[in-house]
Protein backbone atom coordinates (compact mmCIF):
# COMPACT_ATOMS: atom_id res chain seq x y z
CA UNK A 1 0.00 0.00 0.00
CA UNK A 2 2.81 2.50 0.60
CA UNK A 3 3.89 1.83 -2.98
CA UNK A 4 0.38 2.46 -4.28
CA UNK A 5 0.12 5.69 -2.29
CA UNK A 6 3.47 6.80 -3.65
CA UNK A 7 2.49 6.00 -7.25
CA UNK A 8 -0.79 7.89 -6.83
CA UNK A 9 1.14 10.87 -5.50
CA UNK A 10 3.65 10.79 -8.32
CA UNK A 11 1.35 10.22 -11.29
CA UNK A 12 -2.11 11.23 -10.05
CA UNK A 13 -1.88 14.65 -11.65
CA UNK A 14 -0.76 13.16 -14.96
CA UNK A 15 -3.78 10.98 -15.57
CA UNK A 16 -3.10 7.92 -13.42
CA UNK A 17 -5.22 6.52 -10.64
CA UNK A 18 -5.15 3.55 -8.34
CA UNK A 19 -8.42 1.78 -7.60
CA UNK A 20 -8.31 -0.32 -4.46
CA UNK A 21 -10.69 -3.25 -4.25
CA UNK A 22 -11.12 -4.48 -0.69
CA UNK A 23 -11.99 -8.15 -0.75
CA UNK A 24 -13.10 -8.13 2.83
CA UNK A 25 -15.96 -10.33 4.00
CA UNK A 26 -17.08 -7.87 6.63
CA UNK A 27 -17.46 -5.09 4.08
CA UNK A 28 -17.87 -1.42 4.97
CA UNK A 29 -17.61 -1.99 8.72
CA UNK A 30 -14.01 -3.04 8.36
CA UNK A 31 -13.01 -1.09 5.28
CA UNK A 32 -14.18 2.36 6.35
CA UNK A 33 -12.15 2.65 9.58
CA UNK A 34 -9.17 1.06 7.87
CA UNK A 35 -9.17 3.56 5.01
CA UNK A 36 -9.90 6.58 7.16
CA UNK A 37 -7.64 5.96 10.10
CA UNK A 38 -4.75 3.83 8.91
CA UNK A 39 -1.52 5.65 8.08
CA UNK A 40 1.31 4.22 6.03
CA UNK A 41 4.92 5.20 6.00
CA UNK A 42 5.77 6.56 2.56
CA UNK A 43 9.29 7.85 2.08
CA UNK A 44 9.68 8.57 5.76
CA UNK A 45 6.32 10.30 6.25
CA UNK A 46 2.99 8.96 7.50
CA UNK A 47 0.37 9.12 4.76
CA UNK A 48 -3.31 8.25 4.51
CA UNK A 49 -4.69 6.33 1.54
CA UNK A 50 -5.03 8.81 -1.31
CA UNK A 51 -6.96 6.70 -3.82
CA UNK A 52 -10.52 5.38 -3.95
CA UNK A 53 -11.21 2.07 -2.27
CA UNK A 54 -14.26 0.04 -3.24
CA UNK A 55 -15.84 -3.04 -1.77
CA UNK A 56 -15.10 -6.10 -3.80
CA UNK A 57 -17.11 -9.20 -4.47
CA UNK A 58 -16.03 -12.57 -5.72
CA UNK A 59 -17.96 -12.01 -8.96
CA UNK A 60 -16.07 -8.82 -9.60
CA UNK A 61 -12.76 -10.52 -8.92
CA UNK A 62 -13.62 -13.33 -11.29
CA UNK A 63 -14.35 -10.82 -14.06
CA UNK A 64 -10.68 -9.90 -13.80
CA UNK A 65 -9.68 -13.54 -13.65
CA UNK A 66 -8.78 -13.42 -9.95
CA UNK A 67 -9.76 -16.54 -8.08
CA UNK A 68 -7.79 -16.73 -4.87
CA UNK A 69 -4.58 -14.93 -5.70
CA UNK A 70 -4.30 -11.92 -3.41
CA UNK A 71 -2.98 -9.34 -3.77
CA UNK A 72 -3.52 -9.05 -7.52
CA UNK A 73 -3.18 -5.91 -9.60
CA UNK A 74 -4.10 -5.01 -13.15
CA UNK A 75 -2.70 -2.11 -15.11
CA UNK A 76 -5.23 -0.70 -17.56
CA UNK A 77 -4.25 1.65 -20.37
CA UNK A 78 -6.04 4.84 -21.37
CA UNK A 79 -7.99 3.01 -24.06
CA UNK A 80 -9.37 0.51 -21.57
CA UNK A 81 -7.14 -2.50 -22.15
CA UNK A 82 -5.48 -4.59 -19.47
CA UNK A 83 -1.77 -4.50 -20.22
CA UNK A 84 -0.17 -5.99 -17.13
CA UNK A 85 -1.14 -8.42 -14.41
CA UNK A 86 0.81 -8.54 -11.17
CA UNK A 87 0.22 -11.30 -8.64
CA UNK A 88 1.81 -10.46 -5.31
CA UNK A 89 3.30 -7.25 -3.93
CA UNK A 90 3.79 -4.45 -6.42
CA UNK A 91 7.30 -3.20 -7.05
CA UNK A 92 7.70 0.54 -7.51
CA UNK A 93 10.49 0.79 -10.13
CA UNK A 94 9.01 -1.66 -12.63
CA UNK A 95 5.44 -0.42 -12.17
CA UNK A 96 6.55 3.19 -12.37
CA UNK A 97 8.30 2.43 -15.64
CA UNK A 98 5.18 0.75 -17.04
CA UNK A 99 2.95 3.66 -15.97
CA UNK A 100 5.30 6.21 -17.54
CA UNK A 101 5.11 4.25 -20.78
CA UNK A 102 1.32 4.47 -20.78
CA UNK A 103 0.93 8.12 -19.79
Amino acid at each position, binding site marked *: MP*TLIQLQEEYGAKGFTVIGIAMDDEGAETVKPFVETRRFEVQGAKRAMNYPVYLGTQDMAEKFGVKEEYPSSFLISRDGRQVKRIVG*PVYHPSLSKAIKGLL
Partner: protein
Amino acid sequence: MVRLAVSVTPLAPFLASSVRGLASRPRFFRRDWSRRSGDSFDTPIPASRGKDSCLDKLSVIGGEVPAFKGEETKLGARNLRILILLASALLLSAAWVKRDSLGWPSWDSDEKMCSEVDIDLPAPQAVFRDYGGNWSKLEEYKGQVVLVNFRPPGVLPAKSKCPLSFSCRKSTGRKDSR
Protein backbone atom coordinates in the same frame (compact mmCIF):
# COMPACT_ATOMS: atom_id res chain seq x y z
CA MET B 1 19.52 -13.56 -7.34
CA VAL B 2 19.84 -15.93 -10.27
CA ARG B 3 21.30 -13.08 -12.31
CA LEU B 4 23.73 -12.33 -9.49
CA ALA B 5 24.81 -15.96 -9.36
CA VAL B 6 25.29 -16.04 -13.13
CA SER B 7 27.33 -12.84 -13.01
CA VAL B 8 29.57 -14.10 -10.23
CA THR B 9 30.10 -17.60 -11.62
CA PRO B 10 32.88 -16.64 -14.09
CA LEU B 11 34.81 -15.12 -11.21
CA ALA B 12 34.59 -18.27 -9.12
CA PRO B 13 37.96 -19.79 -10.20
CA PHE B 14 39.78 -16.52 -9.43
CA LEU B 15 38.09 -16.14 -6.08
CA ALA B 16 38.74 -19.77 -5.20
CA SER B 17 42.43 -19.54 -6.16
CA SER B 18 42.79 -16.34 -4.16
CA VAL B 19 41.24 -17.90 -1.10
CA ARG B 20 43.43 -20.99 -1.49
CA GLY B 21 46.44 -18.72 -1.80
CA LEU B 22 45.65 -17.01 1.46
CA ALA B 23 45.01 -20.30 3.19
CA SER B 24 48.33 -21.81 2.16
CA ARG B 25 50.63 -19.14 3.48
CA PRO B 26 54.38 -19.31 2.76
CA ARG B 27 56.31 -21.42 5.17
CA PHE B 28 58.37 -18.39 6.13
CA PHE B 29 55.46 -17.17 8.24
CA ARG B 30 54.67 -20.50 9.80
CA ARG B 31 55.64 -21.11 13.35
CA ASP B 32 57.29 -24.32 14.35
CA TRP B 33 55.08 -25.35 17.25
CA SER B 34 57.12 -28.52 17.80
CA ARG B 35 59.98 -26.54 19.32
CA ARG B 36 59.59 -26.28 23.06
CA SER B 37 60.21 -23.01 24.85
CA GLY B 38 63.23 -24.43 26.68
CA ASP B 39 65.02 -25.53 23.52
CA SER B 40 68.10 -23.67 22.44
CA PHE B 41 69.45 -23.50 18.95
CA ASP B 42 72.17 -25.95 20.02
CA THR B 43 69.56 -28.60 20.59
CA PRO B 44 69.77 -31.18 17.84
CA ILE B 45 66.77 -30.97 15.54
CA PRO B 46 65.10 -34.22 14.52
CA ALA B 47 65.51 -35.08 10.86
CA SER B 48 61.76 -35.29 10.46
CA ARG B 49 61.51 -31.49 10.47
CA GLY B 50 63.10 -31.34 7.07
CA LYS B 51 66.25 -29.76 5.73
CA ASP B 52 64.53 -26.67 4.47
CA SER B 53 62.88 -25.73 7.71
CA CYS B 54 63.61 -22.13 8.66
CA LEU B 55 64.35 -23.09 12.21
CA ASP B 56 66.78 -25.72 10.99
CA LYS B 57 68.67 -23.10 9.07
CA LEU B 58 68.71 -20.67 11.97
CA SER B 59 69.93 -23.37 14.32
CA VAL B 60 73.28 -23.43 12.57
CA ILE B 61 75.10 -21.08 14.90
CA GLY B 62 77.66 -19.01 13.13
CA GLY B 63 76.46 -20.24 9.83
CA GLU B 64 75.34 -18.13 6.94
CA VAL B 65 71.79 -16.96 6.98
CA PRO B 66 70.16 -18.53 3.97
CA ALA B 67 68.61 -16.33 1.32
CA PHE B 68 64.82 -16.41 0.93
CA LYS B 69 64.54 -16.39 -2.83
CA GLY B 70 61.87 -19.03 -2.80
CA GLU B 71 59.89 -17.12 -0.22
CA GLU B 72 60.08 -13.94 -2.27
CA THR B 73 58.50 -15.77 -5.20
CA LYS B 74 55.77 -17.06 -2.94
CA LEU B 75 55.18 -13.60 -1.54
CA GLY B 76 54.83 -12.28 -5.10
CA ALA B 77 52.29 -14.93 -5.93
CA ARG B 78 50.47 -14.15 -2.74
CA ASN B 79 50.36 -10.47 -3.58
CA LEU B 80 49.01 -11.33 -7.02
CA ARG B 81 46.23 -13.38 -5.45
CA ILE B 82 45.37 -10.57 -3.07
CA LEU B 83 45.32 -8.20 -6.04
CA ILE B 84 42.93 -10.48 -7.94
CA LEU B 85 40.74 -10.77 -4.86
CA LEU B 86 40.62 -6.99 -4.42
CA ALA B 87 39.91 -6.47 -8.13
CA SER B 88 37.06 -8.99 -7.94
CA ALA B 89 35.65 -7.27 -4.86
CA LEU B 90 35.91 -3.91 -6.61
CA LEU B 91 34.17 -5.30 -9.70
CA LEU B 92 31.37 -6.78 -7.61
CA SER B 93 30.98 -3.53 -5.67
CA ALA B 94 30.73 -1.52 -8.88
CA ALA B 95 28.20 -3.97 -10.28
CA TRP B 96 26.16 -3.77 -7.07
CA VAL B 97 26.11 0.03 -7.22
CA LYS B 98 24.88 -0.17 -10.81
CA ARG B 99 22.50 -3.05 -10.10
CA ASP B 100 19.43 -1.14 -11.29
CA SER B 101 20.82 -0.73 -14.78
CA LEU B 102 21.99 -4.34 -14.75
CA GLY B 103 18.53 -5.51 -13.75
CA TRP B 104 19.53 -6.90 -10.39
CA PRO B 105 16.88 -6.69 -7.68
CA SER B 106 17.53 -4.12 -5.00
CA TRP B 107 18.17 -5.32 -1.48
CA ASP B 108 14.93 -4.12 0.09
CA SER B 109 12.63 -4.60 -2.84
CA ASP B 110 9.98 -7.20 -3.47
CA GLU B 111 10.92 -7.44 -7.11
CA LYS B 112 10.40 -10.77 -8.82
CA MET B 113 8.92 -12.31 -5.72
CA CYS B 114 5.59 -12.65 -7.45
CA SER B 115 4.63 -12.88 -11.07
CA GLU B 116 4.30 -9.88 -13.37
CA VAL B 117 2.87 -10.72 -16.76
CA ASP B 118 2.21 -8.55 -19.81
CA ILE B 119 -1.28 -9.16 -21.14
CA ASP B 120 -3.52 -7.59 -23.74
CA LEU B 121 -7.17 -8.00 -22.81
CA PRO B 122 -10.14 -5.67 -22.74
CA ALA B 123 -10.94 -4.39 -19.26
CA PRO B 124 -14.07 -6.06 -17.91
CA GLN B 125 -17.35 -4.18 -17.35
CA ALA B 126 -17.03 -3.75 -13.61
CA VAL B 127 -19.22 -1.79 -11.23
CA PHE B 128 -17.83 -0.76 -7.86
CA ARG B 129 -19.53 0.28 -4.64
CA ASP B 130 -17.64 2.23 -2.03
CA TYR B 131 -18.16 1.92 1.72
CA GLY B 132 -20.45 4.97 1.63
CA GLY B 133 -22.86 3.16 -0.70
CA ASN B 134 -21.92 5.14 -3.85
CA TRP B 135 -21.62 3.28 -7.11
CA SER B 136 -19.19 3.87 -9.94
CA LYS B 137 -18.13 2.05 -13.09
CA LEU B 138 -14.69 1.20 -14.35
CA GLU B 139 -15.71 2.81 -17.65
CA GLU B 140 -15.75 6.17 -15.90
CA TYR B 141 -11.98 5.92 -15.61
CA LYS B 142 -11.52 5.51 -19.35
CA GLY B 143 -8.93 7.97 -20.61
CA GLN B 144 -6.82 7.44 -17.50
CA VAL B 145 -4.17 4.87 -16.75
CA VAL B 146 -5.65 2.75 -13.96
CA LEU B 147 -4.16 0.26 -11.55
CA VAL B 148 -6.84 -1.98 -10.08
CA ASN B 149 -5.53 -3.56 -6.90
CA PHE B 150 -7.39 -6.44 -5.26
CA ARG B 151 -6.61 -7.12 -1.63
CA PRO B 152 -8.25 -7.55 1.74
CA PRO B 153 -7.45 -4.37 3.71
CA GLY B 154 -5.88 -4.76 7.09
CA VAL B 155 -5.46 -8.46 6.54
CA LEU B 156 -2.15 -9.87 5.45
CA PRO B 157 -2.41 -12.27 2.53
CA ALA B 158 -2.86 -15.83 3.67
CA LYS B 159 -0.10 -18.22 2.70
CA SER B 160 -2.53 -20.55 0.96
CA LYS B 161 -3.91 -17.74 -1.18
CA CYS B 162 -0.70 -16.90 -2.98
CA PRO B 163 0.41 -19.14 -5.82
CA LEU B 164 4.09 -18.55 -5.09
CA SER B 165 4.98 -19.88 -1.69
CA PHE B 166 8.33 -18.07 -1.37
CA SER B 167 6.82 -14.69 -2.15
CA CYS B 168 4.01 -15.28 0.30
CA ARG B 169 6.34 -16.17 3.11
CA LYS B 170 8.16 -12.94 2.47
CA SER B 171 5.10 -10.76 2.07
CA THR B 172 3.28 -12.16 5.08
CA GLY B 173 6.33 -11.50 7.19
CA ARG B 174 5.91 -7.77 6.83
CA LYS B 175 3.51 -5.73 8.85
CA ASP B 176 2.74 -3.28 6.09
CA SER B 177 3.01 -5.57 3.15
CA ARG B 178 2.71 -3.75 -0.13
